[in-house]
């Protein structure tokens, strides 16, 4: 809200407080002032008269003037095209400080110039208020302007400062000047005087005018016929106040309607009475049509929009803008005043759809207080009489709901202090409430407040408490901690799992990323193990952000793509995030490896991430989380071979649950992200939590020595490591402590289609030292099994 300091001063004596001090106090009390702007700026100004104006001898556009400023005549060079003899002008004297800089006496192309003739723009007046003429030259003052007058801004009505107040939605009442004055009065502990408006509309003859409400969206309508008005110029002070609020002046009658709206918060509409020949107004909301509003634009009216009609024809978009047809102009002789209440939601919808965000619509949308219609009608009559020679009044027509029950809210001193944690006295509290015009009545502990009609935000005791602390000041609060029974604070299982996961991923040298939840069509179509049907936004802001993602893969690949494009070739990421589908959600872990995981040529330690790197990470991640290798199964990928390399990817199973898929991204798919050879895994953390982690159990340390035996053999290439290890373990010896393949070789000296395998078996018993015989017996069984189960040809 744009608040005029000068206008406010009409209601409260502000002589001892500057606009800047006022802004600070208002901000502290919750009415945040975002800017303080003088309407015009400049020192050392005076009103002058151009006595003589001749062309500058050395310029095609400059003039040399002799300008009288009081008793003195100064030579001033001026470049404005409208500079001429006899003009009354604003003169900035030597030493004047203007927004554009300081004015000093100096020659202009050889001609002495002792100041500057000013335009209003040069004095910092908002361009918005200036006409073409004013923008293109110096300001032309009226002929009767007092030459020598030094208080130029007061003469022009520009001696004002505008406070830009950001109101919270609960304080829409302060959009009305009168209510704002009450609020400022409470902040400053000063008396507030509203104009003597009450009862001024209780005049007039009986009326035949008919108002009918055919929609619930207009609960109340105040109307009044004024048979005679004189349309003419608006008093200067009113124009200035309208300007301060950001409203253009049109004529006295229209300006009064806007001025009263600014005072009371009630949007008004004045119709040219002669354009309502049927003497009726009906409010409807069931029309579909086109109509031209008073800005000359045509609007498409839909069912649901509230319309004002007369004789069956539309004559205004209710609460937003009147029709062109019934507009007030210089020929208007009589008017009909409308002060009505329209449904805020409906007004907001219509004004947004028509892109017609008028001052009236904004007032309705933010809410109008219940007594505003009466106040606005009274004030309209008062000002129309005073400034538009209004006469021939008919009685006020009131249709719809009229009752207003003043609100009474009770609070006790102890409850107030208890909620705030303060120790205020009854006097402190009632002082604040009196300043707010809440008329507090004290009965022992209890305070009964009578809430003014415009404070629609005050409904219960907590609202009273807020007013008390807000106006006494929050600095009076101490800092304490809640006193209450002890509670256990701890993280939940999933929260702990996330923390463990991060710790482990950090130790693998991966960076955590957070990517956007909302994704495009392609990401949904190409989701990895999508959780289900994607949740779609009703009204997305862009094609890129249409769905809630069902998998993390594409967002993570996009991140790798970005970093590759920014000259980072080794990118290793993890992300922990929920994915969503209709009626479902799941917490997932994504891992992406791209490039070298270790890159240290100096010490010859380079680890290029491949399938086995990722597999190793997953196995040790699961092991660290309490799921030992025996419970984890890596199976061929049957879930998604579209996005994965069909022969270099696998499923991860924990007990009987598939946690997800990992492996090399399909080269064709990687190409879409300008990547190649990128490894990716996406696992369900919820799935992990659903299985119980194994407990840590200490096993007594082995006391007897172990014996290792190496075996080398050749098998067909397609025989898997798992088949070989199964063959060994199925030999059944309890003495086999561990088996490890330490070499695989294909190529020279090995027959085509075969591979050479070398492995080491560790034999050990927990209760005695193994004898050669025992080991040999067991080892022979192993060898036999290798030969029979995987057709191993032993090498010696």
């Amino acid at each position: 809200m744009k608040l005029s300091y000068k206008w406010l001063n009409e209601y409260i004596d502000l002589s001892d407080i500057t606009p800047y001090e006022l802004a600070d106090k208002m901000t502290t009390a919750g009415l945040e002032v975002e800017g303080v702007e003088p309407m015009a700026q400049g020192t050392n100004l005076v009103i002058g008269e151009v006595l003589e104006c001749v062309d500058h001898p050395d310029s095609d556009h400059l003039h040399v003037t002799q300008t009288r400023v009081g008793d003195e005549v100064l030579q001033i060079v001026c470049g404005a095209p409208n500079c001429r003899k006899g003009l009354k002008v604003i003169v900035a004297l030597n030493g004047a400080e203007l927004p554009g800089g300081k004015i000093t006496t100096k020659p202009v192309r050889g001609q002495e110039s002792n100041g500057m003739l000013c335009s209003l723009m040069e004095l910092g007046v908002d361009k918005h208020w200036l006409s073409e003429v004013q923008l293109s030259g110096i300001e032309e003052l009226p002929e009767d302007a007092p030459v020598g007058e030094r208080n130029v801004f007061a003469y022009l009505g520009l001696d004002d400062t505008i406070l830009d107040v950001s109101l919270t939605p609960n304080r829409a009442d302060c959009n009305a000047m009168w209510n704002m004055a009450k609020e400022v009065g409470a902040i400053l502990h000063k008396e507030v005087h509203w104009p003597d408006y009450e009862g001024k509309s209780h005049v007039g003859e009986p009326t035949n005018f008919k108002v009918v409400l055919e929609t619930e969206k207009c609960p109340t309508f105040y109307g009044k016929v004024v048979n005679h008005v004189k349309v003419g110029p608006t008093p200067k002070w009113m124009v200035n106040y309208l300007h301060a609020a950001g409203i253009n002046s049109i004529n006295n009658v229209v300006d009064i309607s806007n001025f009263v709206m600014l005072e009371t918060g009630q949007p008004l509409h004045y119709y040219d009475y002669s354009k309502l020949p049927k003497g009726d107004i009906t409010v409807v909301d069931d029309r579909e049509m086109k109509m031209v509003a008073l800005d000359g634009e045509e609007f498409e009216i839909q069912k649901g929009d509230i319309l004002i009609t007369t004789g069956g024809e539309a004559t205004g978009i209710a609460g937003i803008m009147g029709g062109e047809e019934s507009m007030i102009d210089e020929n208007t002789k009589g008017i009909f005043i409308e002060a009505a209440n329209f449904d805020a939601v409906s007004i907001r919808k219509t004004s947004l759809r028509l892109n017609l965000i008028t001052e009236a619509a904004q007032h309705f949308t933010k809410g109008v207080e219940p007594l505003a219609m009466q106040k606005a009608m009274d004030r309209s009559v008062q000002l129309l009489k005073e400034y538009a020679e209004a006469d021939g009044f008919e009685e006020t027509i009131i249709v719809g709901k009229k009752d207003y029950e003043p609100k009474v809210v009770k609070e006790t001193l102890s409850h107030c202090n208890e909620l705030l944690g303060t120790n205020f006295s009854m006097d402190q509290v009632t002082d604040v409430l009196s300043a707010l015009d809440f008329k507090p009545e004290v009965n022992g502990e209890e305070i009964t407040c009578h809430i003014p009609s415009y404070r629609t935000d005050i409904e219960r005791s907590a609202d009273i408490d807020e007013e008390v602390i807000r106006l006494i000041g929050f600095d009076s609060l101490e800092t304490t901690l809640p006193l209450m029974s002890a509670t256990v604070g701890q993280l939940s299982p999933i929260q702990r799992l996330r923390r463990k996961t991060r710790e482990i991923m950090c130790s693998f040298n991966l960076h955590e990323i957070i990517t956007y939840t909302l994704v495009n069509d392609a990401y949904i179509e190409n989701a990895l193990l999508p959780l289900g049907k994607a949740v779609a936004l009703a009204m997305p802001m862009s094609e890129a952000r249409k769905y809630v993602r069902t998998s993390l893969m594409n967002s993570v690949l996009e991140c790798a793509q970005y970093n590759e494009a920014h000259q980072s070739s080794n990118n290793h990421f993890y992300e922990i995030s929920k994915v969503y589908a209709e009626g479902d959600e799941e917490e997932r872990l994504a891992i992406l490896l791209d490039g070298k995981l270790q890159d240290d040529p100096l010490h010859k330690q380079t680890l290029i991430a491949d399938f086995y790197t990722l597999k190793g990470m997953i196995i040790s991640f699961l092991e660290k989380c309490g799921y030992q290798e025996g419970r984890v199964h890596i199976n061929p990928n049957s879930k998604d071979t579209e996005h994965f390399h069909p022969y270099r990817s696998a499923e991860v199973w924990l007990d009987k649950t598939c946690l997800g898929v990992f492996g090399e991204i399909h080269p064709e798919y990687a190409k879409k992200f300008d990547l190649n050879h990128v490894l990716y895994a996406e696992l369900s953390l919820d799935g992990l939590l659903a299985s119980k982690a194994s407990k840590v159990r200490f096993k007594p340390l082995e006391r007897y020595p172990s014996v290792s035996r190496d075996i080398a053999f050749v098998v067909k290439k397609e025989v898997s490591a798992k088949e070989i290890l199964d063959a060994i373990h199925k030999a059944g010896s309890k003495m086999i402590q561990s088996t490890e393949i330490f070499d695989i070789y294909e190529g020279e000296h090995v027959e085509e289609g075969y591979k050479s395998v070398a492995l080491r078996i560790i034999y050990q018993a927990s209760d005695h030292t193994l004898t050669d015989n025992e080991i040999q017996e067991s080892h022979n069984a192993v060898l036999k099994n290798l030969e029979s189960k995987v057709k191993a040809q032993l090498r010696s």
Partner: protein
Amino acid sequence: MIEKITQVQEEALSEIEKADNVESLQQLRITYLGKKGKIQELMSLMRDLSKEEKPAFGQKVNICKDEVTKALEAKQEVLSKGALSSKLEKEKIDITLAGNKMTLGTIHPLILIQQEIEDLFVGMGYKVAEGPEVEKDYYNFELANIPHDHPARDMQDTFYINPETLLRTHTTAIQMRELEKAHGELPIKLICPGKVYRRDDDDATHSHQFTQCEGLVVGEHITLADLKGTLKYMADVMFGEGRQVRFRPSYFPFTEPSVEVDVSCPFCNGKGCNVCKGSGWIEILGAGMVHPRVLEMNGFDSRKCSGFAFGVGLERVAMLKYGIDDIRNFYINDVRFLETFNRFD
């Protein structure tokens, strides 16, 4: 004859003294102590001595042998020490070369801050609550005292999925779920961090997705002063010890009174600097006493209990704390950005 012994001994000791490597010392050992060595030779001279002379001579030779052996061992020790140190010297490396790269991964800065806040509140007996990001209008707005057509819905332009479902615009939705779940049981002490979404165009200071952490306490005799005290600790955790907090009146539909919370600027300690734009304070939190209607809608007797709630945007905290100038950095995940957070703070 006796002189002969003395002569051999002196000669041996002198040569041992001169020996400068293990090999020549070994040669001297053979020369003097070997089976055919000079001392053995002396022993063989005994044959020619009388019975009376023999014991004295033998004794002398033994003394000589002991002396030489001792000298050899002493010298041996000296020489082998020297050999080791010269061997070590040959093993000299350039300690100024870079060490092996032992880099560790990182945790996202938003999570770092979230974890710090979690740890503070868990330590004070709070639980960490969570809820769905695809949320019901009922929890996001209705229960939070923001009915349909409430002007505050404009403040949070919402991604709707259908009229009943939306992407949560604040983690207040989690608070409402927890209040409802409590069925009027007191006390409630929780914080609720999480992702939230609003219809904003992404730019340096706006993001359609961001992270909030809210807190909620409901119990008997909970006061606004308790809120101030609690937030003071939170400010210390976020920005370092010694912060002060200041309340300014504000408006949120789910709290009454509502406040904006300023924290004394951690960069200038309140003197005024670029970060706080000269004011000495940075605006960081929204908070207030839980609106009695919110308590009642969730089945609590607002005359018998009270509560406070607060909320903070983690991006804003991280941006202030680490001097990050563009909110998009958190979601672009440039490796250079992420690597900034590779150490404890």
